[in-house]
């Protein structure tokens, strides 16, 4: 049963991830009073890329070609261990806790950066350098957020954190929890490349993640993009299911609630996608060096969570 549910969760995340990436583009265009691309456009793009042949820079090592498959596999593995459609651990759930999950995200990001450097493209180097600068600060903040969640639940297991927040209104309404939600939302904007951090244009002035796969083509580029969609889906799901809206996630393996939750999760993801689209349409992009001010504020929120716990003694 748990293995079957693991496969359902993997398929749910991997197959729906491009949909929400497409939905984000469509809603953004609709907000600009344009007709916008089809919601399924990302699927069409992936199919087109899978049919094309690959062109690899002659100077690149074999690692360059393997990297998209490696990152995609790492993201797929994460779909098996994070609470997406269930609030109880599935077959691979006990393998890693939050810190372990963060390390796998970090490993995938590192593989992407090494591959970008291996491509010998100036644009890819530029993106890798920017991404490394930003993640060197944002990833420790992520660890700090997990430590704060550890204070809340006494563990770093995302399933237990979900159960704690679902069952304890005191913890859910605590200042510690809401500071952590604020900090994680800001990290989510950084990690998923939303405004005010990164604008999805072809201008190299603001490119971060976009410029890293610039030398990829064909199926490798498809896996690179698909992996990016799955990463976005996973982080959004973690934000919804562990941090901000942990409710309704089934705590027992019963088919009825599980099927119902698939629909609920779809709605939750749609709402968060619309929030992202609204943000992308109303906020201007920061200049690159201003991103560090944003990260400093994120750090402040994560640390204030600890201070709130210290001042209120955990009563609030």
């Amino acid at each position: 049963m748990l293995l079957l549910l693991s496969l359902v969760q993997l398929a749910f995340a991997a197959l729906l991830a491009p949909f929400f990436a497409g939905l984000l583009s469509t809603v953004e265009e609709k907000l600009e009073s344009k007709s916008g691309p089809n919601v399924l456009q990302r699927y069409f793009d992936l199919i087109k890329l899978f049919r094309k042949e690959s062109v690899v820079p002659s100077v690149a090592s074999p690692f360059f070609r393997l990297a998209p498959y490696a990152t995609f596999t790492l993201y797929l593995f994460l779909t098996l261990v994070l609470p997406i459609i269930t609030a109880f651990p599935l077959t691979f759930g006990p393998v890693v806790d939050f810190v372990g999950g963060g390390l796998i995200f970090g490993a995938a990001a590192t593989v992407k950066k090494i591959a970008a450097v291996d491509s010998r493209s100036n644009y890819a180097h530029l993106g890798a350098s920017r991404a490394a600068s930003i993640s060197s600060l944002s990833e420790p903040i992520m660890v700090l957020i997990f430590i704060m969640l550890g204070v809340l639940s006494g563990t770093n297991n995302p399933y237990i954190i979900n159960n704690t927040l679902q069952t304890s209104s005191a913890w859910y309404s605590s200042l510690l929890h809401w500071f952590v939600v604020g900090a994680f939302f800001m990290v989510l904007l950084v990690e998923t490349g939303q405004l005010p951090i990164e604008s999805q244009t072809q201008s190299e002035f603001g490119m971060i993640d976009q410029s890293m796969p610039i030398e990829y083509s064909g199926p490798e580029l498809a896996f690179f993009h698909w992996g990016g969609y799955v990463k976005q889906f996973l982080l959004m799901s973690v934000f919804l299911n562990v941090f901000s809206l942990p409710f309704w996630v089934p705590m027992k393996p019963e088919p009825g609630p599980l099927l119902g939750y698939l629909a609920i999760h779809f709605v939750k993801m749609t709402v968060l996608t619309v929030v992202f689209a609204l943000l992308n349409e109303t906020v201007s992009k920061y200049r690159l060096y201003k991103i560090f001010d944003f990260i400093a504020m994120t750090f402040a929120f994560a640390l204030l969570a600890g201070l709130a716990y210290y001042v209120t003694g955990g009563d609030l």
Partner: protein
Amino acid sequence: MSATYSITGFIIIVLGLFLQWQVYVSRIVFTFAASSIVIAVWFAYQGIVTDSYSPIVLAVLTAGVRGTLIPILIVRNLHVTPWRARENNPVMGTASSIVLSLVLVIFSLWLFRWSIGRYVGATGVYAALPFAMLFQGAFLIISRRNAFIQMVGYLELENGVLLLGAWGFPQLPLLIEAAIVLDLLGVVVVARIIMRMREESLSIDDRAVAEAALSEDMRG
């Protein structure tokens, strides 16, 4: 009561960090106005809960004077002196000043617990939050060179005093609390007069320099 007080305190600490984040004076003034309104809402809530009129009066004064009048005065003056609309040359970078402001919050909480906190008991620990605001306001004054932002830093510091008085000394007469609120009105008016005098004297100097240069040209 302590729950709403600590939520108010933390909202204002976050707004204090936002003050460090911004460089445009108008945004800084609006952030300060928001923090004053938050304090006013807490006063109003306290008045309703305790069925007392003096916190309601303080709420109206705070919202009217600090939340509306002083910000309007500063923003109006900005239109007269547009070169002061943003901080061009801060003492330190924005990210470092945010982190340092946060460090000061931690230091102030430690200082409070180590000094006054020993004598006030468990519930008194919430008074540490206005202490943090005092440090944040003082740091805003020294981290910026723009006169308007320094004034907002002073106002923020006074907000800390106001909130500390409201929590630590609830029996304080309304007259004294109101004096803290209105005291700033005088400061702003005096500051505005000083600024105007300074601008006029500068413009006289400028005119003198321009006339001297013109006569030099004509002689040359």
